[in-house]
């Protein structure tokens, strides 16, 4: 295989597996920028995958190919509501945010399988008939060289994810909403004195994170896994958190980090088929994405500045 052929395999694969991470990491940014740690992204993704698959299965007879798309929207709504549990616990009831997130993960894992068993009478679902398919974008995919690398054999959701990253960047850095959201995560007391409703902003932040993680999970389920079982979401949420931190809580940074994970992963898979790399023990390729992340954090990315008030429940007048 020549280099371009390798690229034409690796890049679409990276785009493919990065999309769910991008959505979820972007969601995490909303929550954490508002000052609420969200370890629960894993559980939210799981619940999103669950909702996405169940909805697709229920809708595919009537909606056909539209079913997975509608399912993603349903997952977004359901997970926004589901994330309220985390919001109530960590914002209103001032629970330890990390712990509340961990509890959300447990809850999603238990509840989704419990419900699957109740609904379908078995431990995992059937495969969905209509997926979010990989497509080659008409026109663009015919461009010599880059057409095959960038615009072929990739699900539309990947492009939506990338576009969304830029939209989120705009929202967070250019709009009043974004400014207020960030102020609440940096210095809630200051925001409060400026008349910003700290609690409401944090609820919104957490619910958007739930929505996006739900989308991320549903996208994973409807484009990659195509059914739902206990192990469908196994760590992707944590990887999304890592991408968010790696990207320094910045939408474009998170996009880059998620792409980096996707790339490293697809390289570790494709590597087994590329001469020279082939001779490297496969375990080294498998762990490469994780090792590279650590090296990158240590070497050139440096200290990540988390939002200052991250993880601190807001109490009026606390000294």
């Amino acid at each position, binding site marked *: 295989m020549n280099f371009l052929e390798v690229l034409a395999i690796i890049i679409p694969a990276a785009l493919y597996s990065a999309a769910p991470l991008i959505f979820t990491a972007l969601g995490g940014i909303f929550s954490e920028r508002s000052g609420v740690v969200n370890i629960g992204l894993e559980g939210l993704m799981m619940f999103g995958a669950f909702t996405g698959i169940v909805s697709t299965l229920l809708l595919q007879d009537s909606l056909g190919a539209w079913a997975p798309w509608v399912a993603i929207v349903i997952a977004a709504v359901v997970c926004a509501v589901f994330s309220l549990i985390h919001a109530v616990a960590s914002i209103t009831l001032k629970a330890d945010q990390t712990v509340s997130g961990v509890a959300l993960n447990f809850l999603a894992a238990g509840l989704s399988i419990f419900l699957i068993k109740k609904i379908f009478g078995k431990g*995992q679902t059937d495969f969905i008939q209509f997926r979010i398919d*990989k497509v080659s974008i008409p026109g663009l995919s015919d461009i010599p060289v880059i057409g095959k690398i960038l615009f072929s054999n990739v699900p539309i959701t990947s492009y939506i994810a990338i576009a969304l990253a830029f939209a989120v960047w705009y929202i967070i850095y250019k709009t009043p909403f974004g400014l207020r959201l960030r102020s609440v995560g940096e210095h809630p007391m200051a925001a409060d004195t400026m008349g910003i409703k700290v609690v409401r902003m944090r609820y919104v932040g957490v619910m958007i994170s739930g929505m996006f993680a739900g989308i991320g999970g549903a996208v994973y389920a409807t484009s*990659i*896994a195509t059914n739902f079982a206990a192990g469908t979401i196994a760590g992707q949420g944590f990887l999304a958190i890592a991408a968010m931190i790696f990207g320094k809580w910045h939408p474009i940074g998170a996009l880059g980090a998620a792409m980096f994970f996707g790339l490293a992963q697809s390289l570790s898979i494709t590597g087994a088929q590329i001469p020279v790399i082939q001779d490297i023990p496969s375990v080294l390729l498998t762990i490469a994405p994780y090792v590279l992340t650590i090296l990158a954090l240590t070497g050139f990315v440096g200290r990540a500045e988390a939002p200052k008030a991250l993880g601190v429940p807001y109490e009026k007048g606390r000294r």
Partner: protein
Amino acid sequence: ACGSDDAGKSGGDKKAADFKVGMVTDTGGVDDKSFNQSAWEGLTKFGKDNGLDEGTGYKYLQSTKASEYESNLSKFAESGYNLTYGIGFLLKEDIKKAAKQYPDANFALVDDTLKSENLDNVASILFKEEQGSFLVGVVAAKQTKTNKIGFIGGVESPLIKKFENGFKAGVKSVNPDAEVISQYAESFNSPEKGSAIASTIYSKGADIIYQAAGGTGNGVFTEAKNRSKGGKDKKVWVIGVDRDQHEEGMPENVTLTSMVKRVDLAVEDVAKKAMDDKFPGGKEVVFGLKEDGVGIAPSQDNVSKDALKAVDEYKQKILDGDITVPQTDKEFKEFEKTLKK
């Protein structure tokens, strides 16, 4: 014949209604679209045929953790179940322990053997996966247009190696020029990886992939379907495993055929024997082509006549002992040498 002490406790006059049979799945559960499911289908059939009630006469327990295997097995034994299956080689050690602890109960292990332990309350159920894989290899070799064929394994282990080597032997026997590209996902539960590996292999020019990768295999189907949507010239195939995976390939119809492993038959068969006081305790029960324990799936619409004919020929050769299908890498090398001569 079975151990005499077995005969003693489940006397000849024992009615079917008193017979209780259970099974413990690995963490896959009874709808894993693979051998747990197949086993449960067999057990269900057995139960229905013999008028047993689900839940009291026949029953399964799904394990959610490896540490539960043993306690789940003992639950059946303690509750007076006559026979308990452990589905999958992962339960081997646990069956060994349980069998020693509950000498009055019978156990059966699927996919591995405990023969050397001399436990006469344990039957070991084995399959000749290499034989079935050989046959689908023949189909692949006959139908490839690119002379490149892929194999994706779940986790590199002696069991999956049997699939790979049998398959390769089948391919090479028919078409020595065909190249088989093999890769292991190192996971039975990573559709993402399955799809990425399949994408790589298809991109390298393969048009058929045989997957023996459990849940990871789902990703292989997804990738094949995605590609086949791109038009006729992009059509690629998957060969399914364990069960007839024709459905998994729909609606794009990408399942060429499947290598079926009749865990259901085996489970039913051993249960029947146990009920009839012929429990093969302490023995290996092997299901190969001869026993119809492995073979090509009944859905054969996508398989060419030519290929089917070849399959029949090779099947006969295997049955006749003219061909001994290799199981390990070493045996495969030997086998390949015989082909070149």
